[in-house]
């Protein structure tokens, strides 16, 4: 049975086909103004990579903040369930999922069947989200993908206690004026961020294995600090941006 999952996020949309526990194809495009159209486009792109027609897809499950706007979905599910399912599909041993997205950060406790049993999300303030690091990368005039590796070279991280993204940015500006090396500033920023994320994790309880998904999962700097804090290595899927859609597809395949 061929099933599809589609994740309409605030920035990117991902469509993915699944059959007999195998990913057949997927697409990853930017979310446009019209969520329905974007979803349709993502589906078509994923279809263009396979040799079966659209109506061969038996069930479609939508997730992501634009999920309610996907007209052709048979069912809609929240991101939390989908991230749990997706992570469980990739790593059956997962018990805790940390999704560090651009706009929010979720910590999810997962039962042995990949169902979420508890979750917490950050609120109201962007500290502890991927956006925090994007803004800091801007302030440091560095490409986002470079900040992770660079921070690893720091041997004397600066303490940054401003959580507010805007003030932290100002703090960074001042540090640069004082001629502090960027690697040390970054190491400080990653620590500041991981403090926030760690307290989120502790609310649901950290149980082995921990899977980290979302944009920040690509930032080796943050991941290293997190692993220091939790005391064991985290699992990071190659397909990080697909996990949501993958989870949706898994749900579509159930029963």
């Amino acid at each position, binding site marked *: 049975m061929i099933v599809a999952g589609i994740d309409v996020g605030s920035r990117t949309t991902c469509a993915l086909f699944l059959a007999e526990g195998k990913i057949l194809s997927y697409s990853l495009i930017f979310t446009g103004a019209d969520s329905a159209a974007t979803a349709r486009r993502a589906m078509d792109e994923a279809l263009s990579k396979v040799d079966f027609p659209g109506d061969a897809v038996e069930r479609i499950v939508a997730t992501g903040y634009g999920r309610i706007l996907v007209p052709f979905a048979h069912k809609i599910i929240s991101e939390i369930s989908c991230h749990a399912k997706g992570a469980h599909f990739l790593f059956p041993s997962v018990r805790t999922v940390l999704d560090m997205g651009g706009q929010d950060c979720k910590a999810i406790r997962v039962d042995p069947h990949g169902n979420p049993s508890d979750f917490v999300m950050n609120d109201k303030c962007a500290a502890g989200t991927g956006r925090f690091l994007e803004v800091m990368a801007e302030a440091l005039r560095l490409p986002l993908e470079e900040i992770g590796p660079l921070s690893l070279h720091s041997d004397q991280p600066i*303490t*940054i*206690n*401003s*959580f*507010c993204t805007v*003030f932290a940015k*100002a*703090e960074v500006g001042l540090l640069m004026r004082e001629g502090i090396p960027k690697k040390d500033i970054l190491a400080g920023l990653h620590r500041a961020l991981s403090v926030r994320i760690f*307290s*989120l994790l*502790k*609310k649901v309880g950290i149980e082995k294995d921990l899977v980290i998904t979302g944009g920040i999962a690509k930032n080796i700097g943050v991941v290293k600090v997190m692993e220091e804090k939790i005391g064991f290595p985290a699992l990071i899927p190659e397909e990080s941006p697909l996990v949501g859609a993958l989870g949706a597809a898994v749900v579509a395949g159930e029963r």
Partner: protein
Amino acid sequence: MESFNQFKSIVESRHDVAVKWKNSTGGKVFGQFCRYVPEELIHAGGGLPVFVLGQIGEFGNVDKFVQENTCPYMRSCYAAGLAGEYDYLDGLVVTHACDMMSKMHDFWRNRTKVPSVFLLDFPHKINESSLIYFRNVLDRFRGYLEERFQAEITDGALKESIQIYNEYRRLLRDLYALRRRDPSPISGLEIHTVVLATLLVRKEVAVSLLKDLLKEVEERRDSRPGGVPILVTGTDVDNLVLYSFLEDCGAAIVADDVCTGSRYFWKPVDEKLKPMDALAERYLNNIPCSRTSPSEERYAHIQELAREFKAKGVIMPIMDFCDAHMFDAPYVLDQLNKNGFPTLKMEIDYTEGGLEQLRPNVEAFLEIISGEE
């Protein structure tokens, strides 16, 4: 500065100081958050009352047990309790000084190793029936302590403790008086280091240390660095970070109206009354904090202090989520401004980064009131 360094080291190694005292004397240590605890009773029973302090920016894993929209100072203290830093306490006396503090009774009782927690209710209104009530509360408190000490607290011992505490209060007021001199022989940060240290030792120790200090300060040649004279009034400040920050910005803290400062020792206990009545009377009528009605006396007191110590301005730290002080602030600041005291409100979140964000504001404020234009 021989004896000053002693105060400093007490603050820095406060846990060791308490534990060492406990091991050497076999006495009992009681923690408290607030100055509404009639310590004389603990002291008379041979115990050591110490203030439970938080650690700026340290919140451990407290988020799992207390929401983030609550007093960061109480959360930091509780984090320390959860981490076992206060396991040496034989008891914790929680006053209903503010909502958050009274809630700490159940939190500490349920999740820390502190063997006993006593909730000491403190009336929100100063009047006759409140006094009678509080007098009864003190009887219960005395009973609780006697049970912990397994011994009676005699009126004689209580009288002695009251005398020691009163002498201690006198000495601190003498010390504060030195801040009126220009140039002052002691800095605001030093004074608050001293006060904080005396919250962590038996008061007879504090008394002898204070006597030495006063002598030494009198003989000081080097006058302390000057600065723009300001008064600090507002929420509880249980650490030196704020004071050193302010003086680093160019302020000279000449006086304060905070719970761990002048409010703590300002008024003596009347030694002519019966000891228990005297305690009830003193603690209920000592300089109130903002959650107590009526407030007029407090408002007047703040301006009196500002005048007496020749402050050029008033800085008001308001801890995040501190309801009573937050609500007070607009009126208090307005009154001070009307009476010729420029004011600066600082919203503090109990992190150093939070303070640094305010540096430009503080520096601007000091520059303006210094009249250097």
